[in-house]
């Protein structure tokens, strides 16, 4: 998938643990882990809303679009 969840960096910046974040959003730690590891198929607006509010960021900071082909070419160049 081309959409990537860039939660790890923002969590580090905000100096918050996964457990605390999960509690604040109202999801389980397991689900947060699915989100962080890019295994999630979709994200609800309500979850995104809470994430932006707690982590004080824009949706664009959390979700990133990376073209799979470009990524492949870059890795080949390296």
């Amino acid at each position, binding site marked *: 998938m081309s959409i990537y969840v860039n939660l790890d960096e923002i969590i580090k910046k905000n100096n918050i643990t996964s457990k605390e974040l999960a509690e604040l959003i109202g999801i389980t730690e397991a689900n947060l882990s699915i989100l962080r590891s890019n295994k999630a198929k*979709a*994200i*609800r607006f309500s979850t995104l809303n809470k994430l932006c509010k707690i982590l004080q960021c824009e949706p664009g900071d959390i979700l990133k679009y990376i073209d799979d082909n470009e990524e492949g070419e870059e890795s080949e160049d390296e």
Partner: protein
Amino acid sequence: MLTKIFYHFYDYKKKPINLISCILLAIVLVILGLFNNYSTNESTFSRSERAIIIDITLYPFILISKLLKSLALASSTGNLIAIIILGLICALPLISYVSRCIITRKHFSLGSFTFNIILGAMIGIIIYYLINPSLISLPKELVEILKYEYVDDLIKKALDDFRKIFLWVLVIVLIQIIILYIIYNLININKNNLNLFKAAKYFLMFQRICYTILFIIAFFSLPGMFKNDLIGLINAEFGILHIFVLIIIKYSFLYLMTFLMLKVLRTIHDLLVNFTNEILFSVENVIILKKCSRLFLINAIASFTFQIIWNIYQFINKSNIPIEDLKFIVGFPYASLFLTLLFYLLALVMHQSYEIYTENSLTI
């Protein structure tokens, strides 16, 4: 109760003791099937299936009635014991129902209570008539009609054995009452609470009954029919070798199809167990449904191949087989093909549902 005993054989791959008991039961059934005297020994090859089916259906009742009759005729004490045993057999469904209600602390249902009384009474009537068959008599009006010549010979022949047919009809009615009771319970559950997982328990019971019946057919009825066909073979004037080959073809395919159906029932058992454990959306269920579809397709192909081989062999050797033993079969396996399609569609629906379920569960 009988189906619960058979239930342990489903896991014969898991425990060696289950496999051993399964093989032992199959051997006992084969021996009983071979030693049972069917009333159609005089007939030739493949002409006596109807009479054998009647004999097989009545067989457990005949066994009990023979035992009771010998007890009753032995002495006055034996007679008393026989009456007590007959009473106990009649009360057995009711006793098992009441004990089940007490153990599981379920409420008494008037419907189930009446059903168990009818069940016991019908079993008692069948056994009583088998002990005293002379009690079954034809109505006078029917005897008068039979004197006329226009009555078909076939009906006359059937009425020669009317006592057996009368009892057979009673057994069929008994089986139908049991099936209707299970369906009534199933509908009743769904009326109050539409719950697939609860309904699966009833389907599991159905599946167990079907498995038991098929097991008995495979290891009791088919060997009996095979024996009967071989007896008919001895009476044949010529073409014994060809008739023997035809018998072998017939029974190999019958066993192949019975084996396939047993495998289907075992696979459905796994699916129903998953449902009772409230596992609905899983890859395993999709695989199970696809497997069932495949098995029904193989069954349809086997049935079709059997007809082709059977008819071609008879056509090639028609001059060497007695005319009365020539029997061409033409039939299309609609049921198997319909079930193939149905299970394949169910597998597709289940696959789609599984994908939606996974997507939903991965939506955070």
